[in-house]
């Protein structure tokens, strides 16, 4: 396998322009002769389907949800970055590029990241033109906020529902093309294999989730926009249906899988409360602007809090450990996501956790309430207000800022965060690893593309906030529509691809075989039983902290679990018709293989990068130790035919424009 990133020549700032000028074009009449399949209809897939259809290609779009409007991008809360410099605070394409490279701990490609920053401004223009209702100031211009430790205000937002509004924008653009007949939409369909003819991706095998029918669909190119694989951990902030299947099947057909062990952990989620929990809910990171994070300084107090005999509000100031402020005085509670997450885990592992499971820390707004309250009292000209009056005023201010989040928290936990500190804990959020792709977003299989969270390209080891939405839309609206021409220009005379070929026969037979095997397996255990066990292994051994011994054991455990799955799983019902257990089983089968690859990757990476802490590689102060001399590469894994024996290929990362620096938040 040869990894050629196809990074264009020329100075960084000109690469994309030069490249666009050299990409081959397909004339409009010929575009009508070309079919493209898009898997997934989130920000990356929806925008790609709409754009490709707009250009004239015939698009077939697939999603497993009942409607493309429900793709998981809809759940993103915070915002989308763009180097517009509307605030005149010194922002620029270069600064957004630099922040993203640094935020990824120097494990992403310079050229891709620069392009992302470059097209970011167009995204905002495009979305506004589509009627996306971004927040505005009284003067009628767009409002911005600052996000995740960045020094400029470049985040565009629509309250806490930015993802929803951006997705509905892409969905409406796609709906327009569906109405024109340029996009054929296949909802409630799942891609179960990619079909390769003469070395090129020429179609897919999909299952109609309602009828159970196995279908063949052909095209001249296939685009994977199928999102991330965080659900390998079972508990995550991902939607329940998010899965790795499309990407994994592509991997098994020759697409390299890059940096699989890179998972972003989000520091402020509602903690796990019991064995039947299915899902973790994120609390917006913006809460850290005002909330102070602490645990009891005294282990006995922590124990008493866990047992319910001591209330957090009864612990005096001098018996609290505001550990982020203590360890990172200059950034305090606003350290990046990985640092905040790791520090919380460190305290909980040391026995200071504050909920029943011992895996929670406090996020406390009492200081903010008093501070805002006393300012407000001044504003209102109140002299010597009582503590109760100040508290009341402060609560009103905090409610205006975070009211909807506080309400959401109270609905889920039945605790009132105005009265008692919130409990939070880190959770699996976003996967930066994914299908390897070159500068054109093409995978190692010709004609097979990967965009958005499904690819690996732009985020390196630790994504910042508000970057994922940007990448999804950049890829779909502005990158792929150009770069795909390079490949499709050769196909103007190919004509429709027949689905009546040995390659389609074989792919369909394999899919049918796997389905039959699962449906006829008369085991005794449910799919979720295996998924939860896999999730525990992954979280404990390949989560926020890993070590050699744990990873080696995890690999053995996953192999054994996989065998047990195929021996013991039970799928009621049949392969015909709607069968949600079968859908889950097919996805978990792939997670059981991906999970092992993640451990192999984590084992290979003998350094700590971003949120990925290899315990053997830390500084004397317990901070992450990156080893640039040996590990400034993308690990791209090739499938060997056996999930336990993947072959590693390395794409060396070349940094010509930024200097690799050790991050410090002290």
């Amino acid at each position, binding site marked *: 396998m040869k990894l050629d990133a196809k990074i264009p020549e020329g100075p960084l700032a000109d690469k994309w322009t030069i490249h666009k000028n050299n990409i081959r074009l397909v004339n409009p009449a010929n575009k009508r002769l070309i079919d493209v399949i898009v898997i997934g209809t989130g920000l990356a897939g929806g925008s790609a389907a709409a*754009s490709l259809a*707009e250009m004239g290609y015939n698009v077939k779009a697939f999603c497993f949800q*009942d*409607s493309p*409007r*429900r793709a*998981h991008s*809809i*759940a993103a809360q915070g915002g989308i970055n763009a180097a517009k410099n509307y605030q005149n605070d010194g922002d620029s394409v270069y600064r957004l590029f630099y922040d993203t490279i640094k935020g990824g701990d120097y494990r992403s490609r310079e050229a891709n990241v620069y392009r992302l920053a470059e097209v970011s401004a167009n*995204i*905002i*223009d*495009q*979305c*506004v*033109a*589509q*009627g996306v*209702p*971004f927040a*505005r*100031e009284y*003067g*009628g*211009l*767009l409002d911005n906020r600052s996000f995740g430790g960045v020094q400029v205000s470049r985040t565009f937002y*629509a309250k806490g*529902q930015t993802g929803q509004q951006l997705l*509905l924008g892409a969905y*409406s*653009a796609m*709906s327009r093309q*569906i*109405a024109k007949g340029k996009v054929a939409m296949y*909802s409630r369909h799942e891609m179960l294999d990619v079909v390769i003819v003469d070395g090129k991706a020429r179609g897919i095998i999909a299952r109609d989730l309602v009828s159970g029918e196995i279908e063949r669909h052909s095209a001249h190119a296939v685009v994977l926009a199928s999102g991330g694989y965080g659900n390998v951990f079972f508990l995550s902030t991902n*939607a*329940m249906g998010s899965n790795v299947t499309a990407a994994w099947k592509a991997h098994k057909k020759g697409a390299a899988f890059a940096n699989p062990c890179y998972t972003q952990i989000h520091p402020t989620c509602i903690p796990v409360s*019991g064995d*039947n*929990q*299915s*899902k973790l*809910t*994120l609390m917006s990171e913006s809460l850290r602007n005002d909330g102070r994070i602490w645990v009891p300084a005294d282990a006995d107090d922590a124990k008493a809090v866990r047992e319910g005999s001591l209330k957090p509000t009864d612990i005096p100031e001098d018996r609290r450990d505001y550990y982020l402020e203590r360890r990172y005085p200059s950034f305090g509670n606003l350290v990046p996501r990985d640092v905040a997450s790791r520090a919380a885990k460190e305290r909980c592992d040391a026995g200071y956790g504050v909920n029943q499971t011992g895996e929670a820390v406090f996020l406390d707004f009492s200081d903010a309430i008093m501070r805002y309250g006393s300012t407000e009292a001044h504003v209102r000209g109140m002299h010597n207000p009582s503590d109760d009056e100040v508290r009341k005023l402060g609560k009103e201010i905090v409610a205006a800022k975070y009211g909807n989040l506080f309400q959401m928290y109270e*609905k*889920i*936990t*039945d605790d009132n965060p105005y009265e008692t500190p919130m409990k939070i804990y880190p959770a699996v959020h976003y996967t930066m690893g994914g299908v390897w792709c070159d500068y054109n977003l093409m995978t190692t299989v010709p004609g097979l593309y990967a965009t958005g969270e499904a690819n690996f390209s732009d985020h390196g080891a630790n994504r910042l906030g508000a970057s994922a939405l940007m990448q999804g839309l950049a890829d779909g*609206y*502005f990158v792929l529509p150009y770069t795909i021409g390079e490949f499709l220009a050769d196909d103007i005379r190919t004509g429709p691809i027949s689905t009546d070929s040995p390659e389609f026969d074989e792919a369909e037979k394999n899919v049918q075989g796997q389905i039959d095997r699962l449906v006829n397996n008369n085991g*005794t255990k*449910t*799919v*979720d039983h295996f998924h939860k066990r896999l999730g525990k292994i992954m979280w404990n051994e390949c989560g926020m902290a890993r070590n050699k011994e744990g990873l080696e054991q995890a690999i053995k455990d996953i192999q054994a679990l996989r065998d047990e799955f195929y021996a013991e799983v*039970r799928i*009621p019902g049949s392969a015909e*018709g*709607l069968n*949600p*257990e079968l859908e889950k089983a097919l996805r978990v089968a792939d997670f059981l293989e991906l999970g092992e690859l993640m451990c192999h990757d984590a084992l290979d990476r003998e350094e700590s990068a971003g949120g990925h802490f290899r315990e053997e590689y830390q500084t004397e102060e317990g901070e992450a130790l990156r080893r640039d001399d040996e590990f400034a590469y993308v690990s791209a894994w090739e499938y060997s035919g056996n999930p336990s024996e993947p072959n590693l290929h390395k794409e060396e990362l070349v940094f010509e424009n930024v200097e690799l620096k050790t991050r410090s938040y002290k």
Partner: protein
Amino acid sequence: MNLTLQVWRQNGPNDKGRMEEHKLSGISPDQSFLEMMDVLNEQLVESGKEPVAFDHDCREGICGACSMFINGEAHGPGRGITTCQLHMRSFNDGDTIYIEPWRSAAFPVIKDLMTDRSSFDRIIQAGGFVSVNTSGNTLDANAIPIPKEDADKAFDAATCIGCGACVATCKNGSAMLFTSAKVSQLSLLPQGKVEASDRVLNMVKQMDLEGFGNCTNTGACEVECPKGISLENIARMNREYLVAAVTD
């Protein structure tokens, strides 16, 4: 908690369907309603029976997939929530809970609690968009200032998640709240105004074609809407429709 569930089971659109009783014990008040359904399904699978099919995905109240009629209410007791945001502490130990699918001719049952809401997509395809090329060669986003009040109103309308609770709870099975939310969002913004009259005519026409009923202003939709979409939108759509129909 110990519960008795009466769950609607239906093998397909042509099956008659029936209620099925299930007993559950050991349910924690902290579980969400869908997690309670997961427990039921685990039990069913372990005993070799088919689990209850229901739509769900994000489980944080935004994707709009989950759709259950619980004790005669869309998304169950509580206001401003989807089923995934409903917690078992809203019920009492020993309760019997009735669980049914969305009821509307325009949302045929696929299986059990799962319905086909693709009619909503077709309403959007009839004009719920701005006809702008996805080329990125658009005006600078700040070239057309939009009064904050208009942007906020457009946003409020745009928060509709397309779950269908409005239709399911309406005695006429009307999709006016859903359709009017999109019509309002786009007609409040200068970018969407240009084709506003074609949009409202086409979307209303499609709504009727799909078999949704008429609006008789009972307001049940607004009460059950998990996102608080206001009846004002229906009034706005009616005005837009009238003007468009007269000038058409």
